């Protein structure tokens, strides 16, 4: 791989490897085509973010002359390698799209019709559509040599036209027009007798009839493009008073910041070069797409009704077995901790926790951190209702959740109007911890119910992201959750705690201490054992601790979905470390850490990856699983992934990820499927059985007087 050979892999190249793994899931021919398309759109949308944030940062680093990264590469080398790898992936992505997926979809009756293949009837229909609905929304802008390049925003699809009057000697003109984002990009063509669902792209319609915007000119060449800009700049943290406004300014700024990449359709080399020149982008930054550009906006297509056979069968989200549906949540959680494994289990219990709390007269207060939450989320509505019912509701709304800022500002203000105490995050730190707490006054004293999770309070992603959470009424955990909320709501400085570990104050130190403890306790007889699952591993200090542990004989199994800067399997460095990555239909998102600890096993869940960003620049939580049966369950989940031989890849010491395949005579094992099936069987066995007892609804004895 990279030279010189270092103890670490490069962070960004490792991330690109991850996106390549996502692509490979889309390349699987046995997967239904709409499912494959989804992976391809994810690849594109991942790249957009990657360029906005990482490549932009690399470019800035290159400009300011930052030295080599831990893998020994300069910024320029990294940028060059990034460009090379991305191009390779994009090529494979479009090959697959144009040669396999689109034909497969067409075969099944979902057919994309590109310009040049429109039937006369379709031409007629589309032209009318253009005149009626598209034309009024278009604003063509002339590009002048001696004026600023017109505003093209960030990630917005545009068409470019090269125009001429057709008279000799007349200079060519150049104009751009934004493809309206208010209209659906997928344009359905009228059904014909054969019943096939044909569709085309709005941008193709704009490109085809765009000449109508320029009367008196003829269109010589036309092309589509999309500019990706630097989105990685921070809000002015000094402005505490009007932070919301400062944040809005950042959002505006993102539309006008430095361009870092331009994607263009392969229609016109002249326009491509002209656009690059005008945007001051080098050839490395220009990506020509051999097919429809901006695949991420095709995500909607994957949801098209009526084509279920082109998708994987739906997996249900079960109401968790450990939480009887017809009993008050409080009673169950008081009696024992309950674990929730999203998305196999449903997000509904969390919604119910908030809703029940809102309506419960005994509830005094509710506190929650909201990171990537949708505005119409039932959680937000529940909190609003609770505030109106006179509960003290505190919501920490992280405005800085990247790319969600706009959405966040709107509903945060709505919450405030309902009487919720809204805390708009912390200066210089993103609050990434996910915690919710309900304070309830019960007959024998106050009781707190906490929900601590590895995933956000977002009912939408809760159907796609694999996360673990616990409900608990454990006094110590609840007490410390209170302290945690006190510190993030500004009531208090951070306290040292026994059970909860908070970043940026303690977490990194604790993780390293846990790894070192494992190394210290490891001996010939009882070698240490660490199993850790996370999204990314990029913190050099933590990686060094893992190397130390490996040298001390600790067996280390890592399940890292995304970036992994650790180089496994190197003699005298990391020979006891193995790394796998799972990319499957659910996005692996849970952070679970297991330490054998000389037989006194410890299991932790966390909102944090082992990256400097999480450990040093965010407010994160790590919490222990305290109940024995839940520890066993979490450990079971952790271990299940290492048996996967279908969707798992192993990282070699050379940095190459190798897809696992069932060995001769070995049954295929797909971890996500296994977890789902096991849960389905259990649910059906229990829910299928007739009730042995009726649940009698009566007031508690005390209330009957």
């Amino acid at each position, binding site marked *: 791989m990279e030279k010189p050979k270092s103890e670490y892999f490069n962070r960004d190249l490792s991330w690109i490897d991850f996106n390549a793994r996502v692509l490979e899931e889309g390349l699987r021919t046995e997967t239904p085509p709409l499912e494959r398309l989804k992976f391809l759109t994810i690849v594109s949308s991942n790249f957009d973010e990657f360029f906005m944030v990482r490549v932009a940062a690399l470019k800035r680093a290159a400009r300011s002359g930052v030295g080599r990264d831990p893998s020994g590469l300069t910024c320029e080398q990294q940028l060059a390698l990034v460009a090379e790898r991305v191009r390779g992936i994009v090529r494979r992505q479009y090959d697959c799209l144009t040669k396999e997926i689109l034909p497969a979809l067409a075969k099944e009756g979902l057919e994309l019709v590109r310009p040049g293949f429109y039937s006369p009837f379709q031409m007629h229909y589309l032209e009318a559509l253009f005149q009626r609905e598209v034309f009024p929304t278009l604003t063509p802008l002339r590009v002048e040599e001696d004026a600023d390049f017109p505003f093209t925003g960030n990630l917005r699809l545009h068409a470019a036209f090269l125009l001429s009057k057709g008279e000799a000697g007349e200079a060519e003109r150049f104009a751009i027009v934004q493809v309206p984002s208010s209209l659906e990009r997928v344009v359905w063509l009228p059904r014909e007798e054969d019943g096939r669902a044909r569709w085309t792209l709005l941008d193709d319609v704009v490109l085809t009839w765009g000449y109508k915007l320029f009367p008196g000119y003829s269109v010589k060449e036309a092309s589509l493009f999309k500019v990706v800009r630097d989105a990685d700049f921070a809000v002015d943290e000094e402005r505490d008073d009007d932070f919301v406004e400062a944040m809005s300014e950042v959002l505006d700024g993102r539309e006008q910041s430095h361009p870092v990449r331009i994607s263009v359709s392969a229609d016109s080399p002249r326009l491509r070069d002209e656009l690059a020149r005008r945007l001051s982008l080098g050839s490395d930054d220009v990506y020509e797409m051999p097919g429809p550009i901006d695949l991420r906006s095709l995500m909607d297509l994957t949801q098209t009704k009526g084509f279920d056979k082109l998708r994987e069968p739906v997996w249900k989200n079960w109401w968790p077995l450990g939480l009887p549906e017809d009993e008050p949540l409080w009673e169950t959680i008081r009696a024992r901790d309950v674990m929730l494994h999203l998305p196999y289990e449903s997000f509904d219990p969390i919604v119910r926790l908030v809703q029940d709390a809102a309506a419960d007269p005994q509830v*005094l207060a509710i506190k929650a951190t909201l990171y990537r939450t949708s505005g119409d989320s039932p959680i937000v509505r529940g909190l609003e209702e609770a505030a109106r019912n006179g509960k003290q509701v505190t919501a920490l709304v992280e405005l800085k959740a990247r790319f969600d800022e706009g959405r966040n500002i709107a509903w945060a203000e709505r919450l405030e109007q309902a009487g919720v105490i809204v805390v708009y995050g912390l200066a210089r730190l993103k609050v990434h911890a996910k915690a919710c707490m309900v304070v309830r*006054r019960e*007959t024998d004293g*106050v009781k707190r119910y906490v929900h601590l999770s590895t995933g956000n309070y977002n009912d939408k992603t809760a159907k796609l992201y694999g996360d673990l959470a616990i409900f608990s009424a454990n006094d110590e955990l609840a*007490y410390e959750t209170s302290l945690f909320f006190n510190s993030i709501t500004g*009531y*208090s400085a951070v*306290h040292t705690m026994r059970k909860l570990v908070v970043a940026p104050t303690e977490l990194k*130190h604790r993780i390293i201490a846990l790894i070192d403890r494992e190394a210290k306790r490891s001996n010939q007889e009882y070698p240490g054992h660490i199993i850790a699952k996370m999204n990314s591993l990029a913190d050099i200090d933590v990686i060094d601790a893992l190397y130390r542990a490996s040298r001390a004989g600790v067996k280390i199994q890592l399940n890292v979905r995304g970036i992994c800067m650790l180089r496994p399997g190197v003699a005298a460095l990391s020979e006891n470390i193995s790394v796998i990555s799972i990319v499957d239909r659910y996005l692996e998102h849970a952070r679970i850490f297991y330490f054998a600890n000389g037989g006194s096993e410890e299991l932790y869940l966390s909102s944090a990856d082992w990256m400097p960003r999480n450990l040093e620049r965010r407010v994160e939580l790590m919490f222990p699983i305290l109940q024995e049966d839940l520890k066993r369950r979490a450990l079971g989940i952790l271990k299940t992934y290492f048996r996967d031989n279908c969707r798992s890849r192993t990282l070699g010491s050379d940095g190459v990820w190798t897809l696992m395949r069932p060995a001769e005579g070995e049954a295929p094992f797909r971890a996500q499927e296994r977890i789902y099936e096991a849960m389905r069987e259990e649910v059906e066995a229990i829910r299928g059985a007739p009730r042995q007892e009726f649940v009698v609804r009566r007031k508690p004895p005390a209330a009957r007087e």
Partner: protein
Amino acid sequence: MEKKNRLVAVVEIGSTGIRLVVAEIDRDGFWRVVDKAGKPVALGRDVFTSGTISREAMLACLGVLHGFRELLKGWGIEDDEIRVIATSALREARNRDTFVDRVYLQTGFRVSVVEGIEENRLMYLAVRYALKDDRPQFTRSNSIIIEVGGGSTEIMLLRRGKMVAAHSVRLGTILIDQQVGQATGSNRYLARFLAESVRNMRESLSAEMDLSHVRTFIVAGSDARLAAARLGTEVNAECSVIERAAFDAFVEKIQNYTVEECVQKLRIPFAEAEGIIPGLLAYKLFLECTAATEILVPNVSIREGLLITLASGVDPELQEEFFSQVIASAVSLGRKYRFDEAHSLHVTRLALKLFDELKAEHGLDRRARLLLEVSGILHDVGMYIRSSGHHKHSQYIVANSEIFGLHRDDLDIVSNVVRYHRKASPNSTHIAFIALQREERMIVLKLAAILRVADALDRGHSQRIAEIAVERRTDTIVLRPAGQHDLTLERLGLEEKSDMFQDVYGYKVILS
């Protein structure tokens, strides 16, 4: 009706920060902390350098207290269940009344400023609670409880678990820092300065107890808790222990750190880093005066002490235990001034007997009885200076001493009672008497009247009247001593000293 659990809150405005605890007290008086918060505010820095709380610090305090208000609202705690106390910084601030008023108007919190010696009491309660019964040598050997705060150092000396002395000394980390900073600013000077201060203090303490016999060294305060978190092992959930050698080595190591290094290497907030070196160094120097091999660090503060008070307000057993500590401290003070112990205790016994018998007449409570007891013990300490006018010397000594568990207000009463145990009754030229509240003046008169009678009964300092029976008639109180004695001397004394009793209670006192 079932008695419900109460939620109570204690807010402490200290010299380095403002801290809050919320606790739930159940019907049996058990309590548990359910919430806490705290933010650094450098009140002490202001007060100990300029004498007043600056506008900025005041605003910072108000900000923190507003936050606490909101937090407490979330718990639904009523105002009468919230106690807001302030310690040395506010105590010494010239603008403390303004501060207290501002806080009340803006946040609704009523701040009460606690005295050093009250701080001692709360600390003692908290320490007793934290130690539980896990360190039995506490009641067998000599102990010291010490806390070096921002503006003052609280010291308690105990002999076999009994209070010998309690002091609040003007030696605090911020003060030290300021004095040393003005001199040279180097840590070596700091060590020398502290060593001198501690030597002086040790000498004055040695009159009460020989520190070299101290076996149990108990350190309260946040600096010590920080050290305990790194070096200590847990005795129980509320208390840790640090080996002396480990502690010494640690202090040795960090002694030359700058504040910034403390923040970085010890990973502690700046506000705490500022005082940690002088604080820990002072502990080390005190430790060197003792024979202790370990340091006990209770993980509690005066906030917990106040919680215990709130929770056990009605626990008579604990109160009696506490009163016995007050008495022990008073006796210890008497010994310091070489009082006639037999006489004093005897007079005290007689006075208490009268007090108990005359309940209907004086209508005073248990606390007044304690003050009478202390007054009885100390009524003659002025003899140490000179026999002539010794009641005035007694008054002076008491007014300028510290007795564990007694407020300034209490000491004002006691010093007046001892003042009037003989000679002139109060009159309008007696400033110390006039300075008292009306109710307090009544208490002084009632107690002094009783004390005078009791003192007269041991006129000869020979404890001849061991017991008395009290008989009430329409206009006379008849005291009948047990046994047969020649009572001439006592009668004479009574003639001379029962005038006040007659004035106050309207009874003549006859010894028959």
